[in-house]
Each structure stands twice: as structure tokens, then as C-alpha cells.
């Protein structure tokens, strides 16, 4: 008990003694982890948008339901399905009824109730969802099936998604790359801070070693000093994301209606990762800084 009190008070004392340096460390960790968190959240966004269903389907063949063209008959539908299954470029065919389409839609836009209220089971068309052996062969499907009776439209899902995905992935990779560089810079800054702290207290550590304090006992206050700064940086950056992200996505959801967006739930989910990254980099660089400085 007394040991931990000592370690903690030394660590906090160290942070206080060098307030400006501590501030610089916390700030630098904050910047890097905000970027890291943003990158992770963008990944979440991509995953959500490509939700495992949409992601796997490459071609949607929407079927007539009397609104734009005469509704498809059961024979026409069976013939279409048989021909699709016989087509060698087709890997999988799945029929999605109007009810299934409605259920998927309500699931996807669960957080946008006004959107869900605006539609009912009759609104969304039934469709064949087709997975191709090679997504590039979309043209073959369009040529063969566009003229089939009861087919309203054939859409290459990839095309729609890809534009959005390409952009998001680019932004995400950029954010993660900068985050990584920033994290490295934060690590170097932490290492330097800890080295300064260890130098300032070199008499004390020399005496500790002299009277037989164990290595971890000599080092722990310094490592803890780094870890506290890292954790504080993680907390601040998470606070920024928590405040900003749900607002931004709520605004976006108003603009872009047909896409699901991440919310508070996902921001909460990245918290442990950010904390682990902040604490991890701090512990690692503090320890590395001390390895040479405080040896038996």
C-alpha cells in the first residue's frame, strides 16, 4: 500500500514539476489518437455501409410490381431464376421478396425512424440478388436479362458503393497514416520527457539503487508518469470524438438519405482501443527511455 502511494505520488509530482512538458505530451497524444479514432470510425462507417448483405451482392435485378411496369408473373419469375442459375458467370442467386426487402431496410436505417415510417412493405420492389463469379462481368447479365418480361431494372451494386467506398477508404487510410506518424512523434516526445524527468531525479534514483530498491520500483514512477499523460491524451481525444462524431453523422444523415451512418455506439466502441494505444505507446517509450538511463 505504502509502495503504491509512493509510486503514484512520485509520478504525479513528476508531471506537476514539468507542467509545460506534460502539456506538450498530452496534446501530442491527443492529436494522434484523435486521428487514430477518426480512422477507426471511418472503418466502422465503411463496414456499416457495406453491411454483410449489400457487400456480398453484386447485381440487383429489380422486379416489376405494377407501378412502373406490369407485375411479374410467377412463371416469368421462375423462368428468370432458372435462367440465372444456368448462366455460367452467375455464382449465387437469391430471391428477396418485398417483405424481406422491407425488413432489411428497417434494420439498416433503424436509427432514422422518419425514413422507416415513410415506407411500407409495398414500397420496395422484390429483386433477385446475384453474385457473380467475376464482378467485372456485369455487362453479360445486363445484356441477357434486361429485356426479360417483368424485369424493371438491373443495377450494378458495386458501382453505387464503390464511389463511396473508394473515397472513404482513402480518407481512412490517410487518417490512419497520419495518426501513426503522430503516434510515433508522441512516443519520441514521451521518451524525451521521461529522460528529462529521470535526469532531474538522478540523485534520488542513485540512492534508491544504492540502498537496494528493486528495478521496477525505481522505474515505475517514471513509466507511470508517461502512462498517466498517455491516458489523459486518450481521454481528451475520445472526448473530442464523442462530442463531434454523432453531430457530424447526424448532419450527414439528413443530407444523404439512403445510407446508414455510425453514431454514439461506435464512438463508445473505439474508446478501449484508443486508451490502449495511448497507454501502450506511453509505457513503451517510457520504458525504452529508462532502459539505458536507469540500469543496475
Amino acid at each position, binding site marked *: 500500500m*505504502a*509502495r503504491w502511494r*509512493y509510486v503514484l505520488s512520485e509520478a504525479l509530482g513528476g508531471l506537476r514539476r514539468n507542467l509545460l512538458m506534460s502539456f506538450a505530451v498530452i496534446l501530442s497524444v491527443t492529436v494522434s489518437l484523435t486521428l487514430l479514432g477518426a480512422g477507426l470510425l471511418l472503418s466502422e462507417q465503411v463496414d456499416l455501409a457495406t453491411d454483410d448483405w449489400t457487400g456480398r451482392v453484386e447485381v440487383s435485378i429489380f422486379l416489376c410490381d405494377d407501378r412502373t411496369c406490369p407485375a411479374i408473373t410467377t412463371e416469368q419469375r421462375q423462368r428468370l431464376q432458372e435462367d440465372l442459375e444456368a448462366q455460367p458467370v452467375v455464382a449465387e442467386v437469391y430471391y428477396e421478396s418485398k417483405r424481406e426487402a422491407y425488413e432489411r431496410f428497417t434494420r439498416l436505417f433503424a436509427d432514422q425512424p422518419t425514413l422507416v415510417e415513410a415506407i411500407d412493405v409495398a414500397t420496395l420492389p422484390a429483386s433477385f440478388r446475384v453474385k457473380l463469379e467475376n464482378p467485372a462481368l456485369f455487362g453479360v447479365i445486363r445484356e441477357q436479362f434486361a429485356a426479360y418480361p417483368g424485369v424493371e431494372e438491373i443495377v450494378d451494386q458495386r458501382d453505387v458503393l464503390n464511389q463511396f467506398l473508394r473515397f472513404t477508404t482513402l480518407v481512412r487510410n490517410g487518417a490512419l497514416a497520419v495518426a501513426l506518424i503522430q503516434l510515433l512523434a508522441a512516443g519520441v516526445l514521451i521518451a524525451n520527457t521521461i529522460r528529462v524527468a529521470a535526469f532531474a531525479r538522478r*540523485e*534520488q534514483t*542513485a*540512492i*534508491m*539503487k*544504492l*540502498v*537496494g*530498491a*528493486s*528495478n521496477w*520500483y*525505481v522505474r515505475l514512477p517514471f513509466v507511470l508518469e508517461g502512462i498517466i499523460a498517455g491516458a489523459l491524451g486518450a481521454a481528451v481525444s475520445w472526448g473530442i470524438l464523442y462530442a463531434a462524431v454523432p453531430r457530424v453523422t447526424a448532419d450527414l444523415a439528413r443530407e444523404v438519405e439512403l445510407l446508414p451512418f455510425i453514431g454514439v455506439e461506435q464512438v463508445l466502441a473505439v474508446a478501449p482501443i484508443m486508451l490502449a494505444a495511448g497507454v501502450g505507446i506511453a509505457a513503451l517509450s517510457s520504458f525504452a527511455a529508462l532502459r539505458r538511463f536507469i540500469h*543496475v
Partner: protein
Amino acid sequence: MIRLENVTKTFRRGRDGEVTALDDVTVEVTKGEFVFVVGPSGSGKSTLMRLLTREQRPDTGEVWVSGKNLQKLRSWKVPLLRREIGYVYQDFKLLPTKTVRENVAFALEVIGRRRQEIAERIPEVLDLVGLTEKADALPHELSGGQQQRVSVARAFVNNPRLLLADEPTGNLDPGTSVEIMKLLDRINRTGTTVVMATHDQQIVDSMRRRVVELEDGRVVRDQTRGVYGYGG
């Protein structure tokens, strides 16, 4: 208690210069002895002391302290070795922001002793060094001799089996030095082995204890009840 067998230690000096601090030194100190290590500056006294706490390691030869072969001692066990050794420096090495009591207590705190135990032990050891009155003073409020007594108290507070003192009177005037020597003598009489490096001739002559003399890293004399010089 201590055994050095054919110990050699050289240091690099400059680009290709080498200085032999200890040259084939063999010395044995038994439990409860009081030994002076004498010799001019650079004769290897300090190196010898540092080998005993494994601050340094010899190039060749073996060093044994309280039954442990320091060559084979794992580095994580070095702190445990040092808990059996009290060390007094020439420059006291006290923490300037801590009081006398705190400086002494620090040595026990950092090896994880219980508060209760520390609270009981501190008055005893302050009484031994005669600083009970000064317990709450800061080091800069004390004279050199008093500061050195704090340093001795800190070295002795954990009841070490071996007390090493490297020029403990080097910064003190002759009168104060005598006080410190009386203190070390009293500690020795409790059964603690004391090894003291010094070049204070008067002290060595007055104590009449074993003297090991080093010159250029070699033992040139090992005499029980000796004096500093050859007695001319």
C-alpha cells in the same frame, strides 16, 4: 564475508589508453572485521568498493560477498545484495528536500518495509547517531559532520551485515572525523563488518585496525593493527 580472488579491473581511458585500477588483487575479510583500505588517489580503492556492490564487475577473478559469487549473481538479485550492504559516501548523498527522518526512512520505504516497522526503527537509529533532536531538520541546516551522521544512519538503518564507507571523513575537519570514526567503531562492535577506504593518515594510525594498502592497483601491504605508512 568478503573474498576477492585474483581480481583485475581495467578502464579505458581516451582512445587507446588503458588504466589498470586493480591488478591481480586477492583479499579476504572475515565477518565482524574492521578494515581500512588505504593508498593514494587512483590506487584502486574506490574501484574495489564498487566491485563489492556490483556497481562494477571485474575483468577477471572472482568477488564473493556474504556467500554470493557476484560474477554469477543475476542482475535482478543485485538489489537484494545491496540490502545487505550499507554504503556511506564522502559527499553524504542526502536528498536536499527531505528531512533527516525522511532521508533515513527513504532507505526503508523504497525496499518496501512496512510503515509500522519504519516508525519503530527510525528513532533507534537516530539515537545511535545522536541526531534525535535534529530529526525534522533539512540537510542544509546541518553541519558536515551531522550530515555524515545522517548518511551513516541511512546506511545502518536496515541492519546491514556489511558497511562500506568510501572516504567518509574526506569532507570533514579532524574533530568531526573522530566523531564519525567513533560511530563506525560502535557499529562494528554490533557485529557489522566495516570496510573503509581512506587516505586520512591520522585516523588510520589512531584506530589500530587492519590495513590493506593499495598502490597502482596492487596490494602492497596487508597488516593487522596497522598504521597508514610503513612507520618510517
